[in-house]
């Protein structure tokens, strides 16, 4: 047993995911209180250089060809053995597609307590306190992290990725991988995101729609508005699941992460899965008839008017503004 805080680094196809840095930032908060080290567990194949800017005290690198791609089976096996051996005070994993495949499995195998949806941590002496979001971000739950060892699944939003980055390359030690044969999960191939459509992560302005749309042809109204603004329409998960917009327009946990200058969220409640993909936008303006919608907690401006009244009105005023500017420009250039 140690007072170290482990962070399971998430990386895909040669790139460290932002959540890893967020976890390192959280881990630092705990380690400072416990007096332990922040240890990044980096699993991979020829991936040692990914340790580069991790703000960890040291990096435990596990090299194995079977770790070339993330698979739940390989990560589970390696991490179970690693955590058994080191027994850190806490091991942090992402509440993501990668961490999610591993954390609760480890909790069951190791009989360690697990806290998920954790947004931030704090420490008072030896007591480590977690704050998790629940009920779609409408409620926060707070408690003490049990010991002696515990697993924590971190959601983005509590710390900025930059806080978990460091200019110095940390010390890297190699750890041996346990035998990785007969794994029952294997990656066949990756399906590249459709590039024929616009890349919403590169757009400076986005209009986004969510489930709040409820009467007919609402998407049509939104599309008109987007056309006036000269930007694409993106959406939260339910809209894409229904097939109203292609997956290329999905913003959030399993979609794109976007950081536009303006994110106009229409009828979006602001569930954590969605906020994960747009919370870093420069300016968020939210329109939702439910004044208690969590989207208003991340938005700069909000309004509770009916989208069907607002969208056409706004479209027209934008067109009008553009026309005025257009004539102005025309006069200037002639």
């Amino acid at each position, binding site marked *: 047993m140690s007072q170290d805080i482990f962070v399971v680094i998430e990386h895909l196809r040669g790139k460290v995911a932002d959540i890893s840095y967020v976890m390192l930032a959280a881990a630092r908060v705990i380690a400072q209180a416990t007096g332990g080290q922040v240890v990044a567990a980096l699993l991979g194949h020829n991936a040692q250089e990914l340790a580069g800017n991790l703000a960890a005290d040291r990096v435990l690198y596990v090299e194995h060809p079977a770790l070339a791609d993330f698979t739940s089976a390989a990560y589970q096996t390696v991490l179970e053995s690693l955590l058994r051996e080191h027994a850190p005070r806490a091991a942090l994993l992402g509440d993501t597609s990668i961490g999610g495949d591993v954390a609760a499995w480890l909790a069951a195998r190791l009989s360690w307590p697990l806290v998920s949806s954790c947004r931030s941590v704090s420490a008072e002496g030896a007591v480590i306190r977690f704050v998790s979001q629940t009920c779609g971000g409408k409620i926060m739950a707070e408690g003490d992290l049990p010991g002696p060892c515990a697993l924590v699944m971190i959601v983005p939003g509590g710390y900025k990725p930059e806080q978990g980055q460091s200019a110095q390359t940390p010390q890297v030690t190699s750890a041996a991988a346990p035998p990785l044969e007969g794994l029952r999960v294997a990656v066949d191939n990756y399906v590249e995101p459709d590039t024929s459509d616009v890349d919403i992560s590169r757009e400076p302005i986005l209009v986004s729609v969510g*489930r709040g749309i*409820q*009467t*007919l*042809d609402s998407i*049509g*109204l939104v599309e008109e508005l987007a056309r006036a603004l000269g930007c694409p329409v993106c959406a939260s998960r339910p809209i894409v699941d*229904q*097939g*109203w917009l292609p997956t290329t327009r999905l913003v959030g946990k399993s979609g794109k992460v976007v950081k536009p200058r303006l994110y106009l969220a229409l009828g979006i409640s602001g569930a954590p899965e969605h906020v994960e993909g747009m919370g870093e936008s420069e300016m968020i303006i939210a329109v939702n*008839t439910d004044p208690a919608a969590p989207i208003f907690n991340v938005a700069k401006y909000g309004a*509770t*008017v*009916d989208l*069907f*009244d607002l969208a*056409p*009105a706004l479209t*027209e005023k934008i067109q009008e503004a553009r026309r005025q500017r257009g004539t102005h420009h025309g006069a200037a250039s002639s």
Partner: protein
Amino acid sequence: MVPHRPDFWGIPAEWNPTLWVYSIMFLAVFVLVFRFFQQARLWWKVGRPEVRWDHPGKRLGLVFKYWIAQLRVLGQRYPGIMHVAIAWAFFVFFIGTTLAAIDGHLFQLFQLLGNQNAITDPEAFKFLKGGVYLVFKLVLDLFTVAFLVGAGMAVYRRFVRRPSRLTLDSRFAFSLVLVIVVVIGGLVTESLRLAVVRNDASLAVGWWAPAGFLLAQLWIATGASPEALTNWHMVIWFIHLGSVVLMLVTLPAGTLIHILTSAFNTFFAKLDRPAGKLAPLAQNKDGQSIFVSALRDMTWKQLLDGDACTECGRCQDVCPAHAAGTPLSPKQLILSMRDTFHENAPLLAQSANGGNGKLVGEAITGDMLWSCTTCGACVRECPVLIEHVDMIVDMRRHLVNEGQMGGMLQEALAKLGRYGNSFGQSERARAKWAQPASLKIKDARKEPVEYLWFVGDYASYSAGLVDITRKTAEVFQRGGLDFGILYETERNAGNDVRRVGEEGLFEALVEKNVEAFAKSRFKTIVTTDPHSYNTLKHEYPSTDASRGRYPILHYAELLDQLIAEGKLKFNRQLGYKVTYHDPCYLGRYNGVYDAPRRVIQATGCELVEMPRHGDRSFCCGAGGGRIWMEEDLVKERPSESRIREAVALDGVTAFVVACPKDMTLYRDAVKTTGYENRLVVKDLVELVHEAM
């Protein structure tokens, strides 16, 4: 000598025309009846049973009104006059020919019966002689002229104007040419005879047969000898006879069959329920629900609807879904059903599992069915009383049962099932609009009230309508009305849920609302939404064991009453020039046309009617659950077409509605059509509120 009707004039008696003409005619009629029966038995063989022969007296009344008097046909001037001229001429020719046959052979019947007078003086048994005969000739001749006018109009319309709603194919051209040949053949035959007998006082009728007489002058002017004219007469007479025989034997297979099927269709029309009441899901002998997706699931009457269709296209002309460019045309829907029926019925009739009679997903697509707004304009317009909407809802029930529907509708139904409203909001938020303490709305569950206000989903939840809902409450209060609401216990009334085809959900909603009614004390229900009004009035259990039947009012009716009773007084005459949009479920389905108009006038507004008003009002496009569905097949929204109609009225500045869904759609439509500065959409209650 008085003129009399000659028998087989100009046909040599030794040919014995009586014998063979009657033989041929009887044979032709036999062929007609036999072939028609063959067709008709398929309705019963394939279709499900349904009782449609109760109240025969009333049914004959329908036949008189719609088959003989053709009131629906006359609803449109040009085609109305055209059709009635032809049809009535044929009725008269039929009666005339029958009378002539009786006149010619009545004495023989009496002879057979052994009547001595009939043997000695057969002429005494004839009645088409003298003055009676002259009038007989005059009537027949005038109807011949009427026919020619009607047929001319038909030729011009079918071959020159070619309106898109018509089926422009050879079957109709054949029928039209054939009836013209029959009638002109008769006229020419008559005129040739009149030309020959012009000097025979016992046969000449002069101007009593104006058309024949005039035409006879033409033949006389040719200078042809009486023998030559007699020979010509014989030739034309044969053509006339031949064409009549052809008409009779081809009638069951051609478009003229509508003469018979429309008689049956009007006789068997829906009598057991008002237009606003849908038939519940049918069940088979084992108590299982029947979901209509194939010919076998249809009732025989629905199959008869197909054969009764005259392809006139009036339904298509008034259909908002068709005008919007969706795949639905009520005419095509009926014809698709009919064509599938004709193709498969013989096989289906042979064995219980033979043939394929699938309709939904084949000739009739889900897109067609989901495009319907159930506005009822097609049913209102159909000259032969076809029941399109019932059939569409029957088929939607099948689609719902199979889960085949668009995502938005699915979401709406799921929300209605879970929360009792299509907004997916908590029931506790239903009366949020009533929160301002100043409103003080009574809770009908806790204290007795005279009027239970059934607010409805849109007026309760839609953010944009809250203001109007509050104004409604204020108007009620100022009218001294003792009213209350059900707060979170109210559920969507289910009118549109039912029309979407989700019968089970409809029943569940009814149960909840009826339970709430039973727990409250009130005398009358007043609704905001015409859709709620319709289903509460016609589809909810009509009696409450403890209370008896309670009246259902729409707020337009209630406002009208309050004004009439002097309880609502106005301080101002508004002086606006307005037009009024009749909601389908208030107007066409429930006949409430005058009450809202009187209210408008009472506020001092000048009412200008749109061309499509009253029972011909044009649907906003939201009904029948359309408000919950995708609009990707809609090219021009019905609501936009309607706003353009209103804008064309000179000086009209306000578009008055009496339905929350109308408010929602028309507010949008005014914006999307760019007429925001020309036209304001106002609820009826807003006018009242403003004038108080």
